[in-house]
Structures are given as C-alpha cells and as structure tokens.
C-alpha cells in the first residue's frame, strides 16, 4: 500500500474526489495496473486511486509503445511510410492504408480507378468485421468469460486473414494500398472467396449473439457500466462506435462520403444509454450493416485497372501544400495530416489516432466504479497501443 501524499491528491474545485485525510474514512489506496497486465490490452498502465473498492481517481500512463511513427514518417519518402501505417493499429492495417493513401491522393490530386474504390470498400468492411469481432472476444475475456468467446472470434478472424494473406502476401501487415489504387488485382477467385466469407458471417453473428447478447451475466455485468453522455463525447472529440453508442449520429462514411460510400445503402446504428452494453451491441449492429455493404460491393465491382496507369509512386515530390485524409476506421476517425514542402518526404506527418482520443475520457467513465468495471470499460473503449502511443 502506498500512503497517498496529501498535496498530490488535493481535490480540484468541482471534482468528485474527496479530501485524502478524511478522519472518517481510511487512507486511499493506489493501485498501478500495467504495463504488464493481461487486461490492459497491451502495454498500457492505469494508476487507480481507490477508496475501499471505488475508483476516485484514475490516471492513464502511456508511451510504453512509442515507436516514433511520426518522426519516421517525416524522415522517409511518402511511399516508404505505407508499411509503417500497417503497424499503427495492427488489427486494421487495411483501413490505415486507405486513410494514408487518401491523404496523399488529396495532396497530389491523384484519381483512383473505379475497381480500386470497390476493392477498398470491400477491404475496409472486412477489416471492420475483423476488428469488431476481436473486440467482442476481448471484451468478453475481460468480463471473465475466459477463452471461449475469444476462440470463436479468432476462428472468424482467421477466415478474413486468409483473404488478406492471399491478396497481399501477409496476414496482418498488408501494405496493400497505393496512391492511385491498390497493389495487385484481386481476381475472380478472391472475390468468390470473399463472397463466401461474407455469406457465412451472418451465421456466425447469430451464433455469437445467441450465446451472449441476451446472456444474463453479460447484461448484469455491462448494463449501466461506464455510461458516456453525448455531450461529453462530443466535447472530448470521441469518434466511431464510442460516439454513436452515446447516441450521436456521426459516421464519416455518411458525413464525408469519401470513396464511393454514397452509392451504398446502409444504416448507421445508434446507442441509447452509452454504457458498455450499448458499445458492445453497437459493434454487433455495425457488423450486421457491413454485410450488406460487402454483398453490394462484391456484386457490383466493375472490371478495369486496379491502379491508375499515370500514378507515380517512386520519386514523388508533391507541390508545397497540406492535406488531411480521414476515413471511418473501425475504431473511429483515423486521419493523416500531411504538410509538403516540395521535397520527397513530408515536412509534417501527423496521425489522428482514434484510440488515443477515445481513451481520454477513461477517467470520467471509471469514477465511482470498481477496478473490475474499469477493466471492461477499457475493453469497450477498444484501444490498440500501437495507435495510442505511435
């Protein structure tokens, strides 16, 4: 037990933290969770101050995986940064690729062929399925369902990874998108295989939901835990499923209509309470919406080139200027901000990481709850440390 020092824990005006030297209650207990902790989803550390079992203060500590992503991006060429974007959010390399390709395409005014746009949509929605499935598995693991839901989730993940591998040559680090298209053409066999995975996914979701969504333990454990208000979510810049679970209709696929998303007919699910259960449920509903998008894209994909024949990859020297490319990644708004000064490498390379910005409200969600609740709240925020720390 660490004796909490008085001056370090003086409550700020208006905070819910009580004074430390309260003669009635005892001392506060400071618990440091992580960076090596099975449920902090990587090398993340939470310093929780406990009053009995209740969290009265929670300080996130990160930087344990700071791999100098932005600095490396500024010291290499535009194309050489593409493999690094895979390693940002290492569950969703395809969407990271797309956001970066979009930023560079806007910087140099590069058009993208029709077929490549369709392939990008297919890959982005497959990535969304993959990410949300893994999230549900990890969240259930955090709730205490040790192993089994995660095994189900990883079984499905392997099917999507097989698709990624046969397309790009790598299971996780795909490095597939290029400025002005994609690296290789998927071909008819791949599209047929993607169709099979898409058609089978609904069945998996039915099975998963039959086990979990109405499960009484799951509901008792997650409903009403860590509610996020729409006001706080908007004020903190939260995006993605976290924001929509709080009831704010903001989906960049609808707002920006980047790529060819306006052609697709899909609904944006919204949460009502913003609690952990809503955040879980919203991801399930998003997966259900991804399946019709995939189905439509796989049916309508036109023939044609996969790369713009005039696209220039090597020796790229964009004119001085700046651009911001953002897409609706599975975790939220993933964006790349580039400033060019006319040299082969960007003057400034900045990533807008959805995980980090969604994580900033962690303390607000956890105050007044127990450590066990903090674990599942963190699980429902959906962080990947490669992106939080970069």
């Amino acid at each position: 037990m660490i004796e909490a020092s008085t001056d370090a824990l003086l409550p700020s005006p208006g905070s819910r933290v009580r004074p430390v030297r309260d003669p009635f209650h005892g001392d506060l207990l400071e618990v440091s969770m992580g960076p090596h902790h099975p449920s902090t989803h990587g090398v993340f550390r939470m310093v929780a101050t406990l009053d009995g079992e209740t969290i009265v203060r929670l300080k996130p500590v990160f930087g344990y995986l700071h791999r100098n992503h932005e600095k490396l991006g500024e010291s290499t060429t535009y194309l050489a940064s593409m493999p690094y974007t895979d390693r940002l959010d290492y569950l969703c390399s395809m969407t990271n690729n797309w956001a970066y390709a979009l930023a560079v395409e806007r910087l140099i005014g590069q058009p993208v062929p029709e077929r490549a746009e369709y392939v990008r949509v297919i890959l982005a929605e497959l990535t969304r399925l993959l990410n949300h499935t893994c999230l549900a598995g990890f969240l259930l693991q955090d709730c205490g369902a040790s192993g089994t839901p995660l095994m189900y989730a990883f079984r499905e993940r392997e099917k999507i990874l097989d698709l990624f591998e046969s397309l790009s040559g790598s299971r996780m680090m795909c490095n597939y998108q290029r400025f002005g298209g994609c690296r290789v053409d998927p071909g008819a066999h791949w599209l047929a295989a993607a169709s099979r995975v898409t058609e089978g996914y609904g069945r998996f979701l039915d099975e998963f939901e039959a086990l979990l969504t109405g499960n009484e333990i799951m509901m008792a454990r997650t409903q009403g835990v860590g509610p996020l208000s729409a006001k706080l979510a908007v004020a903190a810049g939260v995006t993605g499923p976290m924001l929509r679970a709080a009831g704010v209709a903001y989906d960049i696929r609808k707002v920006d209509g980047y790529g060819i998303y306006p052609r697709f007919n899909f609904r944006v699910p919204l949460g009502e309470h913003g609690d952990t259960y809503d955040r879980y449920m919203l991801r399930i509903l998003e997966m259900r919406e991804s399946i019709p998008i995939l189905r439509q894209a796989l049916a309508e994909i036109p023939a044609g080139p996969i790369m713009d024949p005039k696209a220039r990859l090597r020796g790229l020297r964009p004119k001085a200027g700046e651009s911001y490319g953002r897409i609706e990644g599975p975790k939220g708004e993933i964006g790349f901000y580039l400033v060019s000064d006319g040299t082969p490498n960007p003057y400034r390379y900045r990533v807008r990481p959805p995980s980090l910005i969604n994580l900033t409200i962690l303390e607000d969600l956890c105050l007044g709850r127990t450590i066990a609740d903090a674990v599942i709240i963190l699980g429902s925020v959906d962080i990947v440390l490669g992106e939080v720390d970069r």
Partner: protein
Amino acid sequence: MEITPEQKDELRRHGILLTSLEELYNWGRSHSVWPLQFGLACCAIEMIATSMARFDIARFGSEVFRPSPRQADLLIVSGTVTKKMAPQVVRLWNQMPEPKYCIAMGACAISGGPFKQGYNVLKGIDRYIPVDVYIPGCPPRPEALLNGLITLQAKISGQSISGPDAPRHLGSADSCEYPVPEFGGHDLEPPKNPDLWQPPAPARAPKP
C-alpha cells in the same frame, strides 16, 4: 556399460522402458513450458492467434499462459521494446524463477526491426536478457512461433543436468538477477549488459 539407442528401442519393444534421470527430467520440462502472458505489440496478436483453436499451441504443452511471472518458464518478447518499456521487461525476467527461457519474437525484439531508426526503440532485447531462440518475421506467422517453441524444446532436451554445460539454475550459486536499466541523460543506463552483448567487431578486409 554403455547402452546404445538401438538397444533401448529393442528393450522398449519388449515393454521395458529404460531411461536416465536426465532424460526424464528434460522430457518433462520441455513438454510443459508455460509462457508468460505478456504482449508488447503487433506480434502479441499473432501470439494470441497461436494459442487459439487453429494453431493450438496446446499440442506442444504450452497453452498455459500465466499472467504472473512467478509461475512462468518462458518469456516471449513479442513486439517492439521501447526504452520506456525495457526496464519493465528486464524486471519481469528477473521475477521469473529458474529454469527460464526467452524467445525473441519478431524483428523488433531481435534488433528494433522497422523501427530501429527510432529514438525510443531498443535495438534488440538481447542487450539486457539472454535470448534462447530468435524468430524472425514482422510479425512471424503462428507456425513460426510454433517452430521456435519446438527449437526451444530441442534445446531443453539437450541440456545436461550436471557438468560444465548445466543450465544456469543448476550451476554455480551466483544470482540470476540481471541489472535493470534506468533512464539516464539521453539513453538507457547502462546501454547494454556487457556480459550478454557486445557490439559486433567491424568487418575489415584483410590487409594484403
């Protein structure tokens, strides 16, 4: 009298199992290697995938991922070790009881990998802790991790429990604590454990 492996096989066919204490001990140790449940970066996801149904690390007796270093035999350094994280990794290694083994999984754990240029990235965990098996790849496939595990099992099976090449924990009584680096002025202090790692000598053409 020396018994050849052929004679042993012959006896085994007749229902007589002949073994030595050393063989029995190593057989048991090498088929129940409990890894530490500890992920650092991208490779950790592949490590989790290895323990799932498709690749099923349980076939090799290593499915028991322990969250506590006190119960673990194997440290899989799965991912980029940053300078902020390196002291924690070495501390975890020190907390593990002997006999213990270390696998450096992926390019980052071996040498810093694609992030080697980074100012905050440790250029290989073997500067601070002794690594038994290196698995290249970015990230290595689950099959590669399984192959690394089999390589480690072969290494354990080959260890003799007495003599000069006995494993650390059966050897001299010196401490198995490794010095934990700390943040110095502009780098980790010390930058390496000189007993474990020395920079390779520069290769020069022989003088004519």
